[in-house]
Each structure stands twice: as C-alpha cells, then as structure tokens.
C-alpha cells in the first residue's frame, strides 16, 4: 500500500531525473515512452487537487506516529485514508472510520482532528508567509 503522497513524490522524482538528463545530455538522450509521460502528467494533475500536494515527509511521518501512539487502535487502512484525505471535521472522519461514534468518545474525536490539523498546519503558515 502506498499513500497518495508517496506516489506523488515518486513521480516527481522520476520527472526530475529526466529533467536532469535533458540538462546533461540534451533532449534526445532523455526520450521517454509516450504512455509514461501521459500517465505521469495525469496522476500529478489529480494528486495536485488532493491533500497530498501540501504534505512533507516529516509531517507525514509525525502524523502516522501520533495516530499510532493514541490508544484508539486505528487499522492500517484507516491511517492510510486519513493520510490521503486529512479530514477537517467529524463528518469527514466518520466516513473514513467505521463505527466512529461507538469506538471513540467526543473528546477523542476532537483530539484526533486536532492531531490531523496540527500535521497540516506548517504548510498553511508557509502559504501566508509567501502570500
């Protein structure tokens, strides 16, 4: 299983490698299969509209560790979906986690949402700085 962010990072790395090659040896040496170009562009287009675009390796690792630390015992796929969606309110979280209300209390839900929010915040600060 890969998270959206890992896929995005991998494709960007591949693209960068091709770009370096163009710079080193000229475009003719760096020809790549057409179908690869198409799918890489489309996947980047899609992932740019998701939460993955704002994630960093550090923030992602921290979020996974924080979720693992909490006594709530999330399944692996639930953590993966939280990573991919970064739910902002209870309704959004409820969709991702089965039987949310019977497993977690109100406070625990708020705490989980806070954890997710704190993992996404660095990027938001960054935006305001740039803007």
């Amino acid at each position, binding site marked *: *299983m890969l998270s959206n962010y890992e896929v995005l990072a991998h494709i960007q790395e591949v693209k960068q490698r091709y770009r370096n090659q163009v710079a080193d040896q000229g475009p003719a040496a760096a020809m790549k299969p057409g179908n690869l170009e198409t799918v890489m562009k489309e996947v980047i287009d899609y992932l740019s509209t998701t939460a993955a675009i704002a994630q960093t390796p550090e923030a992602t690792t921290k979020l996974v560790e924080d979720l693992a630390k909490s006594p709530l015992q999330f399944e692996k796929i639930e953590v993966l979906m939280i990573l991919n969606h970064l739910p902002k309110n209870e309704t959004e979280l409820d969709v991702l986690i089965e039987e949310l209300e019977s497993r977690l209390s109100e406070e625990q839900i708020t705490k989980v949402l806070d954890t997710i929010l704190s993992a996404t915040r660095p990027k938001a600060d960054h935006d305001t700085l740039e803007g």
Partner: protein
Amino acid sequence: MFILTRLSDLVTIQPTSFTVTTRQALEDQINARYANKVIHKVGLVICLYDILKSSDGLIGSGTGDVNINVEFRLIVFRPFKGEVITGRIANSTPNGIHVRFDFFDEVFLPKDYLFEGSVFDHNEQVWVWRTEDGDELFFDKNESVRFRVEEEEFIDNTPVDPALRDSLADADMKPPYKIIGSCYQSGLGVVSWW
C-alpha cells in the same frame, strides 16, 4: 488507492538502446510495456517503482538483442473495497453518475447506490438529492465528489479468433477495469456540502 505489485518479466534491449545505461534502458522498456495499462486482476499500472533483481544479459542468435530477466515493482492504481476516494463528476444519466479522475475514467455510481431521496432532473440532466429538511442538493457536472468503492470489475479483452466470434457486438472493446461506487452516507457526495 495505490499499491505496489511485484512482477518478473523478460526484457529485451535492442542494439539501438546500447548507448544509454542498462538501467535506464530497462526502465524505459518496462515503462513502455506497462505504464498506463491495465493488468487483468491487478489494476491500472501507473509506472515502475523500482528494480529488485536482474539477470545477466543473454544475446540470442540471429539478432543482437540482449535478453534480461528482471524482477521489479510497479505502482498500481487499485483502490480497495470500502475505500473513500474523491473524483470529479463526468456526466449524469438516469441510471447513475459517471465519475472520473484525471488518469482513470471508468467509475460509476449507480442510482441505487445514491442517497435516499435522490431524483434525476431531466431538464438539467443532473441528479438532485432532496434531503429530509427539504433542501435540494445538486450533483453538478465537474464537482468534486467523494464516494466509497463497492465493487470492481475486470473484463478480459484477450483477442478472440474472428471465426469464433458470435456477433459484431462482441468485437466492441469494453473497459478492462471498472469501479462501482456508492454515495449514501453522510460525509460522502459533493465535497463542498460538508
């Protein structure tokens, strides 16, 4: 939504590719063969992830091609059942809603899997969800929509001997990989609603 799949395959490098490094040549060959294609019962391949093992190159007699056995991993688009994904509404019909991603078009939300109280508006050609409070919420075209994966369907498009084909209709290519999704739980549906 994405998984890694391990495959092994015999890759042939032609003499015209001898100018590039072997690794690069292998990657190009594997990507050319698999990228953006559906493997039956595996999913839609995005691209090569890494190469795990490769044998010595063997040159066959007659041609100058180098044959190498390679073991590698691919990034594959294969959402699991129950996963929640966000896509865009491509179009709506009385039967349901077609959803697409930038790289994958075959997602369908049948009308039975939509919210209770959803009706199709023939004038506007959109689905409308009439909530219990009397609000009307529209599944507009191009809106981002969140849905749950319910079923997946693989269709084997292996070519059939023309003499054995029953009719012309069989010759039509069906999408090799299709996802059926649902949208009847609060939190699902158009993203901006929640």
